[in-house]
């Protein structure tokens, strides 16, 4: 089943130099397990292809039902150098929530994960 992160997580993002961080938090504690299993470093790197120029780091915070991603080369140099509208990476949060992951039907229905609707 296809599941959109917007429907199972919330997020906040910020900056550190030319790196944006996105904290991804499960909407329900029981949804942290599939998020940590399927939202891998490689999938997030693929999602941001063409958006960032550097690599992706991924950290787990099971205590907060959260993952933290560092997206390098995300901010056109970052800080005062950047020419971007989002020079401080404030809305990379919702950019990650656009991501759709494939979760086996049995696992998804056991956890009552909402299926991805039509893309807006």
């Amino acid at each position, binding site marked *: 089943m296809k599941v959109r992160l917007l429907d199972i997580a*919330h*997020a*906040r*993002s*910020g*900056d*550190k*130099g*030319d790196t944006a*961080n996105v*904290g*991804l*938090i499960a*909407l329900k504690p029981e949804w942290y397990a599939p998020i940590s299993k399927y939202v891998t470093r490689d999938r997030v790197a693929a*999602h*941001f292809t*063409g*958006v960032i120029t550097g690599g992706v780091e991924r*950290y*787990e*915070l*099971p*205590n*907060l*039902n*959260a993952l*933290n991603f*560092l997206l390098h080369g995300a901010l*056109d*140099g*970052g*800080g*005062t*150098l950047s*020419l*971007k*509208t*989002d020079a401080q990476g404030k*809305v990379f*949060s*919702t*950019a990650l929530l*656009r991501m759709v992951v494939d979760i086996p039907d049995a696992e998804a229905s056991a956890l009552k994960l909402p299926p991805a609707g039509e*893309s807006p």
Partner: protein
Amino acid sequence: MTAKKVVRVAGAQGFWGDWLEAPRRQAEGGPVDYLMLDYLAEVTMSILQKQKERDPSAGYAKDFVGAMESVLSGVAERGIKVIANAGGVNPEACAAAVLEMARARGAAGKLKVGVVTGDNLLPRIDELLASGHELKNMDTGEPLSIVRDRVIAANAYIGSVPIVEALTKGANVVITGRSTDTALTMAPLRYEFGWAADDWDKLAAGIIAGHIIECGAQCSGGNCLYEWRSIENLADIGYPIVEAQADGTFVVTKHPNTGGLVSVQTVSEQLVYEMGDPHAYITPDVVADFTSIHIAPDGKNRVRVHGITGKPATDKLKVSIAYRSGYKAVGSLVYAWPDALEKAQLADRVLRERLDRLGLKFEQVLSEFVGANATHGPLAGPDAGKHAPEVQYRIGVRDADKKKVERFTREIVPLVLNGPPSVTGFAGGRPKTEEIVAYWPALIDKTVVQTQVTVLE
């Protein structure tokens, strides 16, 4: 049996430019022991340094004097203490301005202002480089020598020790320069509870309490994505308060009868904000472990945080260095339906062709189409903005040569009459050319930085 001692630290400013009403509302809305005001972002020190070059009595966050005026009766009459990194590159002048304001308001003798100095390394840069401190860029590894002649500010991030010293000396207002944001909250807790310099878990708890409230209302319903429609009365939002106990556990809350929300979700969003490696949140006092945090609801608008662990501090301090790094300008025009995006895209091609014909090459040129791709880029999808009622065309350039950037600023407005149709939104005229002051993070041995504390009345 006496009740356990609780110390209340109220977040009253999250950055320079934050809500002017917040300090007074925090001082008057209910019981608080300390007001914590964070003014300094990474680039703020360089702005303040430029102001001080023009006027030796400037160089601090002037908003703080007004904030102190708005809470003066609470500090002078009710024993509220204030901790702020408003001093910027001139904490002494900031203290003098606060004391002068207090005298003018009939509160002479009521304030004891502790001034923390020693973080400013600018006068010592050459001596430090000569004695082998390379001040390498933490991100790129380059030595500072390559931009030395363009450096305009250099400040070590200092921790809780000098703030605790100022409180011990009887200060009821503490003004620092480049203190870490989190130390402003941890220091009063350390002072009140007598936490030892190697009580890593409690120091880490104080740091994480500081991280939660250092961005003001961003942990109490502001900028919160989780069920954002349900967050009530943002117009009257309550700023956060930490109610801490001696064992390092604390509750995050806000004053009664205020708007916003304190919940596990609002606090969790702030916990992950600007996070790096959660196992090692490095500060001058302790390395805090964000994976140790336990967070649970504790009644309406109350969240309990406990179980935090920390590891010994490192032997380095982070240094924030600012240097001149060329010029930039960003301009924009707005195109209307029909075919707004197509018109804006044509304007971009025309403008770039004209820049080419003028022989103007820049270090960076960035075009964005607000309404189509400015926030999420290609992730917004191939059809993004296709049917938008309007699209803002936004183009910026960056270069070491100021003349080239200034020439670019003349090329935008002409498009109104000699480019694609249905264009407006040019009332601002030519965009401004700005000097870029860039940020150079580095590390230095702790032993190199000695802070001083003076208490003024």
